[in-house]
């Protein structure tokens, strides 16, 4: 059974213009999915649908078999689907790190001991265990966002949804957050759905879903997606920098493979070329 399933979902905020039109998708347990699309494509609306902050007008969203439109399921669904939003400042409720991470488990009504365990687990998972007593305002953007992730992880969700969680961070902070997320996916088996418009964040995903004008336009591995440059361009999306450079080199007649996505692959390909000549 897929851990997340959307069936013919349509949604509109004002009941006039549909933000999502007949979207269907499935996510398998443990997958790392990237959802990309230009601004206003409806990708953030997906995140809100996934944890029952909003309910589809038509169609259904199932989380681990539970229908999000049924009110009694929503608490369980939110425990299961952790969403990290864009602005770290607007997600933290307490002025001390421990208190903030405790917020979720407190809502679940867990015992003090279990809350303590979860705080330890969550802070360790994001590498912030030495900041327990710190006040978030003194932390960097990347650190704040890691605390926000810890706050969500303390609920022990099976799915982690990142709703443009790196878009307000500097490159350093973005790297910190991505490393934490990748580690959670690999080591803890957390299913990750990363909604983003940074192409660099997409290349490590197991699968990429391209959303355009409220519809799923493309779906496939990063290699498959980034091969179709023209189609991507028509959706207002760019290639990752490494692919773009490789592409330009190929146009100049350099013999370089089409599958290059990361800087590492690019530098390896270039080194190989140099050895040959």
């Amino acid at each position, binding site marked *: 059974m897929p851990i997340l399933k959307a069936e013919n979902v349509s949604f509109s905020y004002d009941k006039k213009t549909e933000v999502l039109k007949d979207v269907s998708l499935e996510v398998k347990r443990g997958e790392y999915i990237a959802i990309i699309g230009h601004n206003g494509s409806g990708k953030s609306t997906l995140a809100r649908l996934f944890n029952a902050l909003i309910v589809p007008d038509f169609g259904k969203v199932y989380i681990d078999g539970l229908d999000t439109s049924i009110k009694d399921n929503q608490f369980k669904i939110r425990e299961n689907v952790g969403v990290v939003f864009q602005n770290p400042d607007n997600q933290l*409720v307490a002025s*001390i790190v421990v208190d903030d991470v405790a917020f979720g488990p407190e*809502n679940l009504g867990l015992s*003090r001991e279990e809350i303590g365990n979860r705080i330890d687990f969550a802070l360790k998972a994001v590498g912030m265990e030495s900041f327990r007593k710190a006040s978030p305002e003194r932390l960097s953007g990347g650190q704040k966002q890691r605390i926000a992730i810890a706050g969500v992880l303390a*609920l022990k969700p099976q799915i982690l949804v990142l709703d443009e969680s790196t878009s307000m961070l500097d490159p350093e902070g973005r790297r910190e957050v991505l490393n934490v997320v990748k580690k959670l996916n690999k080591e803890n088996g957390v299913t990750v759905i990363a909604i983003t418009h940074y192409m660099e964040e997409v290349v490590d995903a197991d699968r990429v879903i391209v959303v355009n004008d409220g519809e799923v336009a493309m779906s496939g591995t990063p290699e498959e997606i980034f091969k179709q440059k023209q189609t991507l361009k028509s959706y207002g999306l760019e290639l990752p920098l490494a692919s773009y450079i490789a592409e330009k080199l190929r146009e100049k007649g350099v013999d370089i493979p089409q599958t290059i996505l990361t800087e590492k692959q690019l530098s390896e390909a270039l080194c190989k070329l140099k050895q040959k000549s």
Partner: protein
Amino acid sequence: MREVSFGQYYPSHSFVHKMDARVKILAVIAYIVAVFLVKPFYFLGFSACLAFVIIATAVAKIPFLKVLKSMKAIIFFIVLSAVLQLFFNSQGTPLWENGFITDAGLYNAIFIVLRITLIVLGASLLTLTTSPVEIADGIESLLYPLKFIKFPVHEFALIMSIALRFIPTLLDETDRIIKAQKARGADFESGNIFKRAKALIPVLIPLLISSFRRADELADAMDARCYSGSKNRTKYKKMKFSYRDLIGVIFTAGLIVGVVMLNGVLGVVV
């Protein structure tokens, strides 16, 4: 901008800092009651209160200057009340012929100054030794009995702690908006008070709008973290009543008894 930030907490690991916030809040209330209990012109009672503050400050290992600094904000208020008492008191006998300053006026002025000063000193000791978060938690715990008359204690406490959490964020934001408006040619420094107040409108409106946006996003984030009000909710933090608090209670009770005794038994007008 940062300095205006709420409650000048002075971090330390002293005896007083480690006390239970609830006990400290109650002790300050008791102390303020003690200050009011001092009958007019029984100045010995005030010395007991002053001794209480000085001992507490010493035990809290807070520099006395830091405590005195908290007076700065209300010095105008103190002077004003003293002047009012001095010049507008018609009771008592004039201190010199045809003078309008009476002995009762002078006594009253001194009395009021001492009363306000002592209250502020004691209250500032609370904010110096207790972080805003601890105070909020303490108030929540103290208000707990009100739950039985349906007062939303949990919601009240949550509002308080979120407000505290957002003070620095909004101060930063205000700073940014002021800079942005200055960059667009706004003038906040010149003109009379009305002109300057008016100049703040382009700061307050963006601030208000962004606060609403923040509130909206925070609500989503709280929902996403399973927040559903106070029912079935547990608390991680637990406040403990320790031997320190017992000593604090005894000490404060001692003050009240002392003040009452100085009022009556040893009733000497100094």
